[in-house]
């Protein structure tokens, strides 16, 4: 039984926009599934439905909502809190006592490589550092399910590659069930066990690809011929999905 299961999810917004049509798949612990698709195809909507932020018009989601970690498109940090206090936020909301909260935060800050920046306010951080703080905040809850809503879309390419490698490290360490949304095919192949291609609106899963690389993965797999070949196939499927 998968940790997160979508069964025949369809979504139509009150204004009549049909966002998703009959989407079914599952993600188990130790699996990292990525959905690539054109802009506005309903990828983010699917994550919001999984998290319970939106209700699907039809179909059902099976997941323990208390065990979801959500990484947003933007870092969504509270500007009035320092990095440490931002990372502590979720533990604070769940009534975790101060000592434990600080321990969890220190551990997570260390894991994302933000040690030394604990007392900085978000306005003095770069985009990549903000995303790291956001990741650390989610990590404190050690969620069995991680939803990533195109988290690295706004950072530069070099930072993005580094953040990909760090996400991979986190996945290898925590073995959560990961569902990742992105526009970037290489990001999808680099991170995932499986890549789904979603069609233009209304979003449907039109192709699925198993990634032939095991874990731990090194950044070098980006230069493996199979990496390029798979990226080409996904790109081909994506072009079909646009039309």
């Amino acid at each position: 039984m998968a940790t997160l299961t979508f069964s025949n999810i369809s979504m139509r917004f009150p204004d009549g926009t049909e966002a998703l049509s009959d989407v079914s798949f599952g993600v188990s612990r130790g699996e990292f599934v990525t959905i690539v698709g054109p802009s506005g195809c309903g990828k983010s909507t699917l994550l919001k439905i999984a998290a319970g932020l939106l209700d699907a018009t039809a179909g059902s989601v099976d997941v323990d909502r208390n065990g979801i970690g959500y990484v947003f498109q933007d870092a969504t940090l509270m500007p009035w809190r320092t990095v440490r206090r931002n990372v502590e936020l979720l533990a604070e909301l769940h009534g975790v006592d101060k000592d434990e909260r600080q321990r969890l935060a220190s551990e997570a800050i260390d894991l994302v490589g933000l040690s030394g920046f604990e007392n900085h306010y978000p306005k003095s951080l770069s985009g990549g550092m903000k995303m790291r703080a956001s990741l650390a905040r989610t990590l404190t809850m050690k969620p069995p399910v991680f939803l990533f809503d195109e988290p690295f879309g706004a950072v530069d390419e070099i930072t993005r590659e580094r953040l990909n490698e760090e996400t991979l490290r986190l996945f290898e360490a925590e073995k959560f069930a990961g569902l990742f949304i992105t526009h970037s095919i290489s990001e999808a192949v680099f991170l995932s066990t499986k890549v789904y291609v979603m069609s233009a609106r209304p979003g449907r899963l039109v192709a699925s690809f198993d990634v032939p690389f095991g874990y731990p993965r090194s950044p070098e797999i980006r230069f493996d011929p199979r990496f390029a070949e798979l990226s080409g196939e996904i790109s081909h499927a994506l072009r079909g999905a646009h039309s």
Partner: protein
Amino acid sequence: MSKKARFDVRLVVPPVATGALILGIWYFVSYVILDPKRRFLLRPPHEVWSVGFANGDNFSEMMEGLLATSKTAFWGLLTAILLGFLLAVIMSQAKFVERAIFPYAVVLQAIPILAIVPLIGFWFGYGFMPRVFICVIIALFPIIVNTLFGLLSAEQGLHDLLTLHNTNRVTRLRKLMFPAALPAVFAGLRISAGLSVIGAIVGDFYFGQGEVGIGQLLKRYAARLDGEQLLAAVIVSSGLGVLVFTFFGWLANRVVGKWAGESRGA
């Protein structure tokens, strides 16, 4: 010496130059444009100083007036802050409450204060409370609008994050909406503090009775064509406005300066 403490010529010279220019124009009008018979219309700065500020009796009369006006403005502002904050929080909690209250806040703002002052005196008398009431009417709107705007300015992603973690209404207000509102709240306070001073002066001016504030003094000096003291009173009242404006600017910087403002970006 630290960078902050160093005397920065670029910061000091422009306002001092403008001040000198204003004084120059003032002297020019007093001595060149106005002939001696008409000089009472604009007394030169040093006469305003010697009659309005250097004369002990006149100065203490004005300071007593200033104290009375400050007291009224302070209580008016405090009431406006409490009431405005409460109304904004209620409005932020439900759209229909906002729809029910907001139009009347706009009406309150649109009332010409000069028209309502005699009416307030007529209804409630000329004591301390009606004066405070005038300050509240004039100072309330910016506090409501800025606080409401601030409360609603919290990032949607952060709201979603709190929703994901089953956060209740009170915690959401406390941990997200209040702190997010602070920069806008302070912007409103700076405006309202100045307005409250104006309210206190206008009320006193029109009531013309009760404890003597700057408003009554202005009226008295004007009636006596006492140009020096009139100008001194004008300077003192605007000084009070500047003082409260500066105070709230300083307070805002202390409270939100560390974190508010533009970020470095990607």
